[in-house]
């Protein structure tokens, strides 16, 4: 009961803080939420893999990078729009993710966690460097008119395209929730995630489920990779910073808590942009991310101890 009251107070306080910021510095809120959408939609697939297959995929950002290159090639060759190209890209990356899973990660599932971690680290290096050899480190970017779509409110003009990523993140959260709670496969996946041995005993094919979840997460990453090229340049190293960011966000939300990733992203996005709004504090904006992660993790551990 006390927990519930605490939560209500917390939500109330956050809403009040958001309201104050919205009136005083509306751009902080706008840009913060836009940034959060991007963070969350890249982190959610990683959260899915970590929650069910229990693997930290250090090649997560590289999967996205590869999907971005595939989309770039497709779009520049055929003139297709990335919002259309994301369908074939997602299909291809799903297959690619499944193959990578069967060939490598599956073999290391019984090994200690660390082996899986370093395995995916090796995969990340090989993928980045192969792309670097083929396409060089020169960045690539296609121009799309709609990326600069904007809205004027009085004196204020701001871009609205990045809200697309907020939408994508919400769709991912809702879609995954429906998948995991309403479908047979999804329920099986959730059971495997909570207790693989128990799931195996009741007759769920754990190996098939892992492969499926890996393919699904890869498809989502592939989709994000396709959309990513609308707003960002791509180059071989473009994915790796997002691996760490996603990993931190997933840990902040707590393993298995997919809606939490969206919440954590919004908190971080707004706080980062809050610091950026002040001259002299701009250089410190990055620190918020890490301070918040440590605070949340330590806070949770202390609360866990009390309970």
């Amino acid at each position, binding site marked *: 009961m006390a927990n519930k009251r605490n939560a209500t107070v917390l939500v109330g306080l956050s809403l009040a803080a958001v309201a104050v910021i919205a009136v005083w510095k509306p751009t902080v809120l706008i840009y913060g939420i836009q940034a959060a959408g991007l963070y969350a939609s890249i982190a959610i697939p990683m959260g899915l893999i970590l929650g069910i297959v229990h693997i930290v995929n250090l090649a997560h950002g590289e999967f996205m990078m590869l999907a971005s290159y595939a989309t770039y090639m497709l779009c520049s060759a055929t003139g297709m729009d990335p919002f259309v190209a994301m369908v074939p890209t997602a299909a291809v990356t799903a297959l690619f993710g499944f193959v990578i899973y069967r060939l490598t990660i599956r073999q290391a599932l019984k090994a200690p966690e660390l082996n899986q971690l370093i395995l995916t680290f090796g995969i990340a290096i090989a993928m980045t460097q192969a792309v670097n050899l083929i396409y060089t480190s*020169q960045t690539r970017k296609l121009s799309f008119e709609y990326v600069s779509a*904007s809205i004027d409110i009085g004196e204020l003009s701001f871009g609205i395209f990045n809200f697309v990523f907020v939408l994508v993140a919400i769709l991912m959260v809702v879609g995954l929730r429906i998948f995991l709670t309403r479908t047979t496969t999804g329920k099986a996946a959730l059971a495997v995630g909570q207790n693989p041995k128990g799931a195996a005993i009741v007759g769920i094919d754990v190996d098939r489920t892992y492969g499926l979840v890996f393919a699904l997460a890869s498809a989502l990453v592939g989709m994000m990779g396709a959309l990513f090229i609308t707003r960002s340049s791509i180059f071989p190293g473009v994915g790796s910073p997002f691996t760490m*960011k996603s990993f931190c966000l997933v840990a902040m939300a707590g393993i298995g808590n997919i809606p939490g990733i969206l919440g954590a992203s919004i908190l971080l996005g707004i706080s980062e942009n809050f610091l950026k709004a002040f001259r002299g504090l701009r250089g410190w904006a990055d620190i918020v991310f890490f301070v918040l992660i440590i605070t949340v993790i330590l806070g949770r551990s202390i609360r866990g101890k009390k309970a």
Partner: protein
Amino acid sequence: MKKALVILVFITMAVSVFAMGDKEGTAAAGSAPATIKIGATWPLGDITGKQGSMAAQQAVDEINAAGGINGHKLELIVIDDELKADKGAAAIEKLVTVDQVDVIIGGMASGVALGQIPAMKKYGKVVVATGAASYKVEEALGADANWYFHLHPWDYNQGQSYADGWAAIQAKYPTIKVGRIFLAYEEGAFGKASFDSSKVLFGNAYTFDGAPFKSAAFGGGDYAAVLDAAKQYKPDLFLWAGYDADALPMLEQAKAMKFNPGIYLGAPPGWPADFGKSPLANNVMLYGMWAPAVNDISPASKKFYTGFVAKYGVEPATYFAPLSYSAVYIVADAIKRAGTTETAALIKALEATSYASPLGQTITFSPANIIKHQGIRNQKILQWQNGRQEVIWPFESATSKPVYPFPAW
């Protein structure tokens, strides 16, 4: 229990690998005294270093095809510095002690150069550097490093040349008025150095301010905050110092925020593939050392460009290609005049260098703030016009007139 044995096996393995390398080197040096060896380090995984090394090889092949230097063939030995100081330093040690090169060229990142300087100082071999813009490198070299020939402008040289350039442009084209300058700089070493030197050089003549941003090259790519600050400042000249990954996204975000300065200028080390094809790119200005347009005014550039495209089937994408090409020609020319690769004579010959480079200017060496041998001092001011980079300033290398103001979208 076998642990120690395992260590021994590994140590023997490691030692033998490098001892083999040692032998190869000395054997080659003994049997073929006629080749002149140029050693080079670049980051081969980066487009700058990759194309720099390709262009240097092109120059070596051209010189050899024309009969070499005083009958001696040239040989280029390139080692990847992997953009890491320790790897770069080890590469210098290998070039000097194992490959026994006569001259060292190359370099890109200042952070790697700082790691290499102690090794370079130890051997005192002639170095013709194609990179390293940070004044920290010059401080680390000190005034005694008379064997160090620095082709690339120092950060303060570049800042000075921009100040000169804008003064000259305003004098020649009275419609162009620059009063307020805003610099958006990436928060790393490159951007911070640009900001510091610009603040000094522009601070007096102009109203100047700036703000940092996290480059997309390092996982950033959100320019809303910095563009917001720039927009409020209402600059005549908006300048950004970042990487090629920032070029188009920043432009797109500026458009979305209706930020429309009279001059929109970028200073990345290279530009994205096909930047010119974007409708937003037209009339964006840039700082740079070279563009294919220089072919129109410089026969050396034309020769370099057609040779590069014929040999490799791609366009040179960064100025590190013609710069590295120049480094080889400058070294070859000096050795030819000195008639030897002996250090003191070579330094003397290099000091007398006057090379009409593909960069569209003649390279000579003169003292900088600390070191004695500084090559190029200025960058050029260029402008994207109809998908092509045209030189606007210096006027003697100009290929086009500036279009002003930057068109509203």
